[in-house]
């Protein structure tokens, strides 16, 4: 069994650097996952615990003061504050010049950026009496990750003594990573403890000027993960982050930075959920990956933010900038995403192939059901010689869902021998949904070889009949065929995630077919 380290963000917006309680788990029994879960929860305040952090410290809306306040609350060094302020000022310019992107094939009413709470003071955990009081979705995620019941109790803060225990456990675990030099911590901690690394790499792939949402994130990001794999190290376990939005009316702006030095390897997983809310919530995250010479980073996401109800009320606006830079020769960055959640997804995990012989991959399954909209794809920017990229995108539309693949493959003048292969397949379930494929292929080097193929189809009546003739119910047959359609992408995920992704897909399709 693969070992895995998990950062668990429970309502990230309110948590980092403030009143957090580090928790972990003792070495798990053989055959289960070893986990280090750092949970920082913001559950309903009940037992009056903290007094010196008033919850109304940061008012609704965005201003320079708010940015300063966020930075101050996180006790950030001046360089960090200055970076945030530069981003904020740039964002004000963008806002003024109406630079909020409109080119994506998604529709939503204008976002009132002054009606979002960018930071709310953390509220302390209440002591729970039993596991029954823990959010069932959190428990489900724990089960999914193979965490034993006893551990779940500790993780959820049910047994207070366990929390005390786990502080040292966390240290044990950290020691295991520290032994090989891997740093895996919250972004806030990294700013405090590894300022040189953060300063060196922050914004080096996604500068604060990158785009409207990335700029906003740069100004107000709350927390996220930081991961550093030093030269020659193969990270001994998979690293995971689990994000969850819980509070209403808040925006969520995580920032993740992954650096793999020469010859390093890491596999990183990201999962997300959000509870049901009838208002839309903005989630504008940024993920940056740097891979130096010979390094390999594999980033897998299973995104299951709340998609809104069948009428399209509520749900997360998932406006995310993810980009990796293959900075060194022979480096490789691979994105795998399974996008089943969110009301709107606007996301293009990309790779800048700068090093010679570097490799970029993008494997994606995006499902839009009910009133969901997704405009997602990738950018592969070939700069180095003999760089290779592979794009495999599977879009599924059901109900009134609108699903767009948008991908850019750019081969620069210097990218001699560059190769790209793109395959985009769309599956339509029903006549009221839409599937769109919008590739942009730009080639400036004659030795490049770029191929793009796409197809759109529906589940054929004869396929359904064949399954039903063998005794399989129609709904199960649809789910089976859809999962088959996605198989090549699921193969890229770690086993448990693949199983999870299949289940998610089947659940998301329920009620959309027939």
């Amino acid at each position, binding site marked *: 069994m693969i070992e895995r380290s998990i950062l668990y963000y429970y309502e990230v917006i309110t948590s980092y650097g403030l009143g957090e309680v580090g928790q972990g788990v003792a070495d798990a029994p053989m055959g289960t996952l070893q986990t280090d879960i750092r949970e920082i929860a913001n559950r309903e305040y009940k037992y009056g615990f903290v007094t010196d952090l008033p919850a109304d410290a940061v008012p609704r809306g965005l201003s320079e003061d708010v940015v300063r306040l966020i930075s101050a609350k996180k006790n950030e060094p001046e360089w960090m504050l200055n970076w945030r302020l530069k981003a904020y000022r740039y964002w004000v310019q963008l806002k003024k010049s109406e630079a909020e992107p409109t080119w994506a094939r998604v529709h939503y009413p204008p976002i009132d950026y002054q009606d979002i709470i960018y930071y709310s003071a953390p509220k302390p955990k209440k002591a729970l009496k039993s596991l029954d009081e823990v959010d069932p979705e959190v428990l489900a995620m724990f089960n999914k990750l193979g965490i034993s019941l006893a551990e779940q109790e500790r993780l959820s803060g049910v047994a207070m003594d366990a929390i005390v225990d786990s502080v040292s456990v966390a240290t044990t675990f950290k020691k295991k990573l520290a032994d090989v030099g891997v740093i895996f911590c919250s972004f806030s901690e990294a700013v405090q403890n590894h300022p040189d690394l953060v300063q060196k790499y922050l914004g080096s792939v996604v500068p604060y000027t990158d785009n409207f949402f990335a700029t906003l994130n740069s100004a107000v990001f709350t927390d996220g993960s930081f991961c550093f794999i030093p030269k020659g190290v193969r990270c001994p376990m998979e690293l995971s982050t689990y994000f969850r939005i819980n509070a209403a009316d808040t925006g969520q702006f995580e920032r993740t930075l992954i650096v793999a030095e020469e010859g390093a390897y890491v596999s990183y997983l990201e999962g997300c959920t959000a509870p049901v809310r009838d208002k839309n919530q903005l989630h504008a995250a940024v993920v940056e990956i740097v891979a130096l010479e010979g390094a390999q980073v594999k980033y897998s996401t299973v995104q299951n933010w709340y998609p809104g109800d069948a009428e399209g009320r509520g749900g997360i606006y998932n406006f995310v900038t993810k980009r990796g830079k293959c900075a060194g020769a022979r480096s490789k960055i691979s994105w795998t995403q399974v996008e089943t959640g969110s009301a709107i997804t606007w996301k293009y995990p990309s790779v800048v192939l700068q090093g010679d012989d570097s490799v970029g991959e993008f494997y994606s399954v995006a499902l839009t059901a009910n009133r969901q909209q997704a405009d997602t794809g990738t950018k592969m920017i070939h700069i180095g010689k003999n760089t290779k990229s592979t794009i495999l995108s599977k879009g599924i539309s059901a109900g009134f869902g609108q699903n767009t693949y948008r991908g850019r493959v750019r081969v620069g003048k210097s990218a001699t021998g560059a190769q790209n292969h793109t395959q985009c397949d769309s599956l339509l379930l029903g006549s009221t949904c839409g599937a769109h494929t919008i590739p942009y292929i730009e080639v400036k080097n004659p030795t490049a070889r770029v191929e793009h193929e796409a197809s759109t189809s529906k589940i054929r009546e004869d396929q359904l009949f064949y*399954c*039903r003739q063998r005794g399989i119910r129609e709904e199960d047959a649809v789910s089976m065929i859809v999962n088959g*359609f996605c198989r090549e992408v699921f193969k890229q995920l770690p086993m448990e995630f693949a199983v999870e992704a299949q289940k998610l897909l089947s659940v998301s399709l329920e009620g959309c077919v027939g």
Partner: protein
Amino acid sequence: MLNIKNLHATVGGRHILQGLNLQVGEGEVHAIMGPNGSGKSTLAHVLAGRDGYEVTGEVTYEGRDLLAMLPEERATGGVFLAFQYPVEIPGVGNLYFLRTALNAIRKQRGLDEFDAMDFLEFAKAQMKLVEMDPSFMNRSVNEGFSGGEKKRNEIFQMAVLEPKLAILDETDSGLDIDALRIVASGVNALRRKDRAMLVITHYQRLLDYIEPDHVHVLANGRIVQSGDKNLGRQLEAQGYTGLNVPVTAG
């Protein structure tokens, strides 16, 4: 076990089955022969419950109204159709597909579901029947299979699903002589006292291997002649016109 009375079927305005009558008893093997367009495949599809046909008449299967049942209910009730053109389902593993189907049927019969390991053992034994390479099991349903492999896969599925009524729709079409022999011996091995078969074919040659109890000639949507296995040989020698069977399109 199967009783068809005055069966009519229309598709796209074309009246294909025009009052077909047929009775099949438990364990009997019936061959249905007929020229192209006589309605053979329509009969198979209507019995399996395919959408798109306007159907009237009466079909009882083990005393139940077959026409009122969903395709999957017919299947779990023991009706199996070996397709003339087995469908490819990309990404869905052959073995996974078949286990899902078998478990649906076992559930209906009140049996325990097979887990992956037990099923694999069970399936391997059945594969030998049709001389199938186990590597096929890891491929997607029918994807990249040759015509002969697809037909063998159909018989293999029949062996696994253990139907009470098997309908073989032109199982011999597109097979070379070796494949035909393998498929036929698979079918023969699956003949049982409690398993009826409806073998639909254009040619006699399949019936040289699978000896039917009864042979019927289908023309213009009706059974126009019935007899024993010799009727097939007679057809082979004289052709459908020799039997004075009216041949028209549709």
